[in-house]
């Protein structure tokens, strides 16, 4: 008896400390550190973008490294906006989709509601291409045209000019590093390129076979420089000069995009979700209010119907709440509106095991067992049905988590699973400890009333 009470007091103290942790860390400037709940985009406001990655041009072996590279590049771009805690992740659905649709990039931007701006910056792909024109073609074009460059002639001439260029397969993807350089005589900005080994070989091959021809360097479909190939270039280095205006912004932007920006895999936006911040605040307040009211109503019901054990169940439910809130912070679980709803539903479900146990206890008391025997039997015999029903909940939760098609569903599922597991501890282990600690020793009218429940009277 004394042992039970001491343990119960310890458990209560630990629960209070955990509860205090959840509460105190909600505010900045406290000695435990600032760990507020992590709120999902639907509660904090922000944008959720889903891109489809086009991997059709990649060999199967390269897909995962390219996807990782894609994530890194987008992450760097997102960081430029100064968004706090952006999330960039890749997703593979190979089991459920064909290869074309299987690879995704998911970007979450808390606080950003101007998606148009955001998605433009993310999806902007500076496409650098190297294209070829033979010397003969260029000559005949120049003969027929007044200008050799784009922009100063008619649209038809522009189109004819661009049509001459044939792709070589050499692109910005094969640039390992770009540097900003200045021509020593003219002081014009230029961009130095270092190709990857693949790019070096290809560039060497092209320049070897096309001495005297022209290489058009295209940025986003526009030629920025069309030098003549004078020699085979074998060291994988090239320089783009000319085409840049004197203020070196344009050149340095290209350097930045080539180094940090060029997307290794083309992406297209297939889903956008934006939630304004006001909507989230309403949902959070509603969730908190609903949680408190539900807790109070359930507590009243438990105490009225189950009396002393009911009170124990309420204490256990308090511990459940404290543990869950602390786990949300420690795991951490990103809370969405559905996740909060899930948590409130689990408050209602967490006491189910208590109810099963207390009902069983009452039956044993009816059969004439003493209070202590009845308690032991109640916990022992209710176990199989508690186990079976919780396992079916966990089956549901796990399937929901793995097949949930949106963060809304997986957020709910995670809370649900954690809730079932924690409630098994609080409703069984913690409740037993408390009940043993406070159960009356002697069988009197009062003690039988306290330990019993419902409307039917017990014989003493």
């Amino acid at each position, binding site marked *: 008896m004394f042992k039970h009470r001491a343990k119960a007091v310890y458990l209560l103290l630990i629960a209070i400390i955990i509860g205090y942790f959840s509460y105190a860390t909600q505010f900045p400037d406290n000695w435990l550190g600032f760990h507020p709940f992590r709120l999902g985009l639907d509660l904090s406001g922000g944008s959720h973008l889903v891109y489809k990655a086009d991997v059709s041009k990649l060999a199967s072996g390269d897909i995962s490294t390219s996807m990782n590279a894609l994530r890194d590049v987008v992450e760097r771009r997102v960081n430029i906006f100064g968004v706090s805690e952006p999330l960039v992740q890749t997703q593979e659905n190979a089991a459920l989709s064909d290869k074309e649709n299987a690879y995704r990039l998911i970007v979450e931007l808390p606080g950003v509601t101007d998606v148009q701006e955001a998605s433009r910056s993310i999806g902007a792909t500076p496409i650098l291409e190297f294209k070829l024109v033979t010397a003969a073609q260029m000559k005949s074009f120049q003969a027929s045209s007044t200008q050799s460059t784009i922009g100063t002639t008619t649209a038809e001439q522009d189109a004819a000019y661009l049509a001459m260029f044939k792709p070589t397969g050499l692109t910005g993807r094969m640039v390992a590093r770009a540097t900003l350089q200045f021509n020593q005589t003219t002081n014009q900005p230029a961009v130095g390129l270092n190709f990857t080994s693949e790019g070096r070989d290809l560039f060497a091959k092209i320049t070897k076979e096309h001495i005297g021809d022209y290489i058009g360097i295209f940025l986003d479909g526009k030629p920025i420089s069309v030098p003549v190939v004078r020699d085979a270039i074998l060291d994988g280095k090239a320089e783009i000069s000319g085409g840049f205006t004197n203020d070196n912004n344009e050149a340095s932007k290209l350097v930045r995009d080539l180094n940090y920006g060029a997307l290794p895999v083309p992406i297209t936006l297939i889903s956008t979700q934006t939630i304004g911040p006001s909507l989230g605040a309403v949902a959070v307040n*509603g969730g908190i209010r*609903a949680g408190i009211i539900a807790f109070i109503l359930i507590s009243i019901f438990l105490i009225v119907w189950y009396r002393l054990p009911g009170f124990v169940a309420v204490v256990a439910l308090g511990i459940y709440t404290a543990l869950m809130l602390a786990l949300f912070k420690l795991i951490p679980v990103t809370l969405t509106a559905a996740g909060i709803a899930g948590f409130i539903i689990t408050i209602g479900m967490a006491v189910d095991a208590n109810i099963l146990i207390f009902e069983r206890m009452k039956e044993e008391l009816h059969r004439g067992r003493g209070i202590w025997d009845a308690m032991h039997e109640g916990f022992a015999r209710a176990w199989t049905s508690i186990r079976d029903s919780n396992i079916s909940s966990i089956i549901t939760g796990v399937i929901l988590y793995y097949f949930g098609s949106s963060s809304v569903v997986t957020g709910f599922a995670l809370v649900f699973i954690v809730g079932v597991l924690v409630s098994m501890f609080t409703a069984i282990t913690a409740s037993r400890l408390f009940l043993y600690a406070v159960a009356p020793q002697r069988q009197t009218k009062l003690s039988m009333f306290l330990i019993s429940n419902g409307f039917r009277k017990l014989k003493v």
Partner: protein
Amino acid sequence: MWVINNRKLFYIFSGILILISFMSLIIWGLKPGVDFTGGTLIEVAYPSGLPDQAKVVLALSTIDSAVSVRQSGDNEYIVRMKAINENEHAVVTKALSLDGSASPVEKTFDSIGPILGAEALRKSYISIFLVILGIVLYITFAFRKVSQPVSSWKYGLVAVIALIHDVIIPTGLFSILGHFASYEVDTLFITALLVILGFSVHDTIVVFDRVRENLKNANTNKPFGEIVGESISQTFTRSINTSLTTLIALVVLYFVGGATTQHFTLALIVGIAVGTYSSIFIGSPLLVTIERWKNNK
């Protein structure tokens, strides 16, 4: 036990509900949300006064002639249209402002491509199937030692009949509400169905567990129907009370929890209420019916 003796009455009652649900599903079907069909959903508020609905429709019809604009609350419209890209979004934003004459605030903007929609639908079917399969297998396993007079897989089968019952009725309700109040079926609704599946099997298990225990202790002459009847009356209070606490939480959530999860909560309330009903009045009596069939053969 009155539940067992009047079981035909309960079968008829459930039969009627299921019939109504089927009729509604056949005639009206379900209204799938944008997360299944793909498309755009914009919630737009006009704090300084709602412009004429026809004007908004007209402005948006240049982008999608099948656009739907519905009023929500005092100063909001909910716009539904085909999936759009960033450039079209800019055009939509401009159209919503009626070329600058109104000042809209986009509260939410969802645009889901058709690929994602089809995938969400596929995943939903798979998860419903897997949850049902998982539960049957588990119940069959948990009740494997019970074979007299009804073999263990039949417990699983009965549990599944009860589960299908519990899922069809809320689905039918949402079909009716979809027709009369434009309630949509979205991924959250599917989540609700799965939670109903997981939850309503709880109560069924509680009764079955008691049947299992009583079969072990009973003398062999006692009719099976009587044992099941006793098991129901012994577990009656706890079946009701466990659902009651969850229903308390759900009802509070429905009224206080905010609009985002209201339809989700409604589906859960109906499903859990129906689920508790079915585990007492349908599931266990069905065990008795099955046992009678076997003996009449």
